[in-house]
């Protein structure tokens, strides 16, 4: 069973996109933990560790990814997490993608991504279970 935490850090005012992803992953047979809006990086990492998830899917619309994402990655590393697949979605400008990947994000999914692509990517990296 693949377990995924769908996380919404920062000040985004709505979570429609995150919920669409959560449902798509559930429909693909995964267990999705959703923790709601306005999560701090500390809360997200605490939830990811407590729930022992295989995948952390972060959604950010506000443009705060250049500060939030490196902080999350830093906390994961501080806890010796090396086997978690980290995905980033929302509104991430093309130009920022290399920096996000350099921070440790495995894949960035832009707006309008087909949810099936996310499902496929997760299955590819975490098995089909």
């Amino acid at each position, binding site marked *: 069973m693949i377990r995924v935490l769908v996380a919404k850090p920062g000040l985004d005012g709505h979570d429609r996109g995150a919920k669409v992803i*959560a449902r798509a992953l559930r429909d693909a047979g995964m267990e999705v933990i959703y923790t709601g809006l306005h999560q701090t990086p500390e809360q997200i990492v605490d939830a990811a560790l407590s729930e022992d998830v295989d995948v952390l899917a972060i959604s950010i619309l506000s443009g705060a990814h250049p500060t939030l994402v490196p902080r999350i990655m830093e906390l994961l590393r501080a806890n010796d997490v090396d086997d978690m697949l980290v995905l980033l979605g929302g509104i991430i400008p093309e130009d920022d993608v290399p920096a996000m990947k350099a921070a440790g994000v495995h894949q960035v999914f832009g707006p309008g991504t087909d949810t099936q692509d996310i499902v496929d990517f997760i299955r590819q990296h975490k098995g089909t279970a």
Partner: protein
Amino acid sequence: MMDLETVYQGIQEGRRRALARGLSWVDEGSDRGNALLGRLFPHAGHAHVIGITGAPGVGKSTLVNALTLHLRKTKQTVGILAVDPSSPFTGGAILGDRIRMQDSVDDQGVYMRSLASRGHVGGLSRATFGALTLLDAAGFDVILIETVGAGQAEVDVMRFAQTVLVVLAPGLGDDIQAIKAGILEIGNIFVVNKGDREGADRTVRSLRSMLGLTSTSLDWVPPIIKTSADRNEGIGELVQAIEDHKAYLTNHAIWDQMRERQAENLLEQALEDMVEAVKKESRRQGEWYRAVSSIRQGESAPAFARELISQWLQKNG
């Protein structure tokens, strides 16, 4: 990668990562999960396990949050298991109970884990029992289990709790439904949440008259507590009722009986596992099919069952 020894030691030392990984193992029903469970069981048996059940939306998670905050004031540590239903079609699930637990997330005295009701090799009650045992062995004083009291499997889970709270809310947790699921029979304490809503008192009254009809146990009379979990009202009274119930269990030696029942449950699971292993092994070796065709010719099935078990024991005993 954590191995069995690391996880086993880590859980007893109260290390979060070890606990989280161990819970994944018992959740998947794997051999290492069973091995871990067997080793940790002797270290469990101290926690007060409180089940919280009721229809979706009555406020169980909000109540769990309020109870946790209250218990933390007296320095009790709290482990939380929140069980949500899986989709019967895809096996997937959305586990959303953490949303209401934000007040406790930064507290090292609180650990919460979400479980999906299906997708478990040996059923929900087995996974929940394993998870409870791990949290107990990790030293949490109180363990809260939240389940939607919808199906038999979820009602079953409640037998691992020493104290069961059945939560209703005005206009929700429809009375007739509750009776159908056998939920009234398992409640030690009844909570009418959303006490701020219109109709709460009516719910209390109709609950009282229903309980009068079903009440069987004469010595513990389940109290009905009105709460408003989202504004922290009635929580002190609820905690008092929980304490009273615990005292009742201890005074009547029921507490110890429950521990014995859990040990029995572990033994039953181990037996079931062994039978499963015998079946699997003998199918793999082909003996199973030879036995089947002999039985078809009129030979004795119990004799073959004994034969398969003894062969398995010779190899694995």
